[in-house]
């Protein structure tokens, strides 16, 4: 049930932090979707502009590549919150109780360590493209119309930083579950049983995004 999981909520500080973060994540994910939509319109403008007026969009590819950073990264923490990053759960799906929380903790800590390293690395990547003293602060630019690359490069460590925050929250959640031997902890993605899913499915409209469903 790799691409799907549910997140329980209550009035604890952890759950409130989870929901607050989730609002931010949802907004960013929607922004990513809107950029995908806008790119589609840009391509139509490119075709029509060229065909009808012999005026293609100047630097079309440069603009597309800059925009790609938005949809490639902005939704990354949202995807983690709703359990959307795929994985194999053949083994982990058979565990229950504390054994499961230990396994989830290991896996999430590993992800957090990696994400922190990548956040630092991605920030350095941004720094190499940024210069306080240069025109447009730019020390790296695109090939055709020389757009500054630092805004797109800055997006990556920001998105990864948010993901690190999300992972830290989930580690807190799994740690609490382990400590309290809780079968249904809040703020972490739970692997659902078929029956639970069927019940949830019955009361939702197909096509509603997972996140919306869980909040309602």
């Amino acid at each position, binding site marked *: 049930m790799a691409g799907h999981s549910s997140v329980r909520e209550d009035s604890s500080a952890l759950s409130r932090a989870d929901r607050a973060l989730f609002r931010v994540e949802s907004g960013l994910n929607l922004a990513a979707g809107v950029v*995908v939509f806008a790119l589609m319109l840009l391509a139509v403008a*490119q075709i029509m502009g060229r065909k009808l007026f012999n005026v293609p969009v100047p630097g079309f590819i440069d603009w597309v590549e800059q925009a790609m950073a938005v949809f490639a990264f902005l939704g990354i923490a949202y995807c983690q919150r709703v359990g959307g990053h795929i*994985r194999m*759960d*053949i083994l982990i799906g058979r565990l229950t109780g504390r054994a499961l929380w230990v396994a989830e903790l290991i896996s999430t800590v590993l*992800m957090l360590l*990696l994400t922190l*390293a990548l956040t630092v*690395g991605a920030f350095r990547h941004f720094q190499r493209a940024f210069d306080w003293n240069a025109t447009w602060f730019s020390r790296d630019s695109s090939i055709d119309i020389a757009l500054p690359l630092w805004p797109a490069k800055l997006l990556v460590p920001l998105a990864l930083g948010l993901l690190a925050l999300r992972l830290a929250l989930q580690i807190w959640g799994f740690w609490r579950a382990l400590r309290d031997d809780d079968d249904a902890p809040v703020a972490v993605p739970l692997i659902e049983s078929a029956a639970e899913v069927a019940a949830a499915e019955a009361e939702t409209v197909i096509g509603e*995004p997972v996140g919306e469903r869980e909040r309602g």
Partner: protein
Amino acid sequence: MDPLNIGLILSGLLVVLVLIGVRVGFAAAFVGFAGLFWIFAQKMGLEKGFDVAVSMAGSVPHSKATTYSLSLIPTFILIGYLAYYAGLTKYLFEAAKRWVGWLPGGLGVATVFATAGFAAVSGASVATSAVFARIAIPEMLAEGYDRRFAAGVVAAGGTLASLIPPSAILVIYAIIVEQSVGQLLLAGFIPGAYSALIYGLLVILMAKFRPSLGPAVRGFTWKQRFESIPGALPIFFVVAIIIYCIYFGWGTPTEAGALGAFVVLCMALWNGMKWGQLKSALMESAKLTVMIFTIIWGVLIYVRFLGFADLPGAFADFLSGLDQSPMVTLIMILLAYAVLGMFMDAIGMLLLTLPVVYPAVMALNGGLNVSAADSAFGMTGSECAIWFGIIVVKMAELCLITPPIGLNCFVVAGVRPDISVQDVFRGATPFFVADAITIAGLIAFPGIVLYLPRLLLG
């Protein structure tokens, strides 16, 4: 330690991490990062080595994710969801059901043909499986179809989207080997239809010998059948627009894909799509997109490490040292892909292997500029590039339905949380046989691939 050995050890670690449930993109990135650290630490000491590994790994996500050729992927995913809200998929499935539902396993056959039809507007296997998991699986379950079988048909049917144009993965192949995107998309058409036919036959045979998989759906009159056709027409209209756009010089294939999405958007709005639905489509597309991009850059951090470990170079040396007929070597390469595909995502696998395997295959045939008469496989160099592209993309599609990292199966299980990913894998297993037959056919009769390119390019 020898970088090559580090490469082999950490590739083993990757399999372990994936098996214990670390999310795939992150597992690959973690192993890649660890490998870079190991290699640099050996060369320049722990502290400096760690520093360089952080910088190197951290530059990959932006560098690799903002590659223009990949910009098709979200558009191709969005088009899938929009087509769903425009009702295109529903009508297509309905028409297929009325026309071929009477066959044994009729809804399965209908699913195969409807996914093939939808493949003509969708460029991503994963999105196609996601959409049909919503449309076809509930109907099949309602008719008492076997749960695994239903999920397997949808997972396998989704792979057709990558051969039948438009196709993100064919574009990626064309970019890597520097061949014409248009020619490759053209070449994928007949093999895609042929592959759909083999899937259809397989479903019929399976249902005939094991009726418990699912019943035929009879009782549609000819009138009902013809009534279903207009509903399926818009999809042909979209296809016509895309083809017109590409072949009459309105835009590049990339741009044409976006135009197709725009036309489908207009249809969806015409059919009364609400803001809430558009928002859902955008949220879902964004989520699937970020998931795919995370795997891509995660795998590419791993690939970057392999580049420093020179695993591809070692493979090239091994291949060119073999003393046997080129066809045997080609088949061995394809078998290696089948094994590799079990552990890798399709795009990552092609990105990793093609820089090494493509020149080797071209050399096996007799070089880039060989004539058909002098070649090993009976085709010119540029024909071989196209032919191998279609075969290797079909192999890559196979890895979308093989455990443990078959993306299509994960997506079906993701959309249908009541079906476990293990069940989808089991349901998809028979389709390996169909794919083996398809690939054997493509090798034995290269004309299936080369007919259209030869016809249009003389």
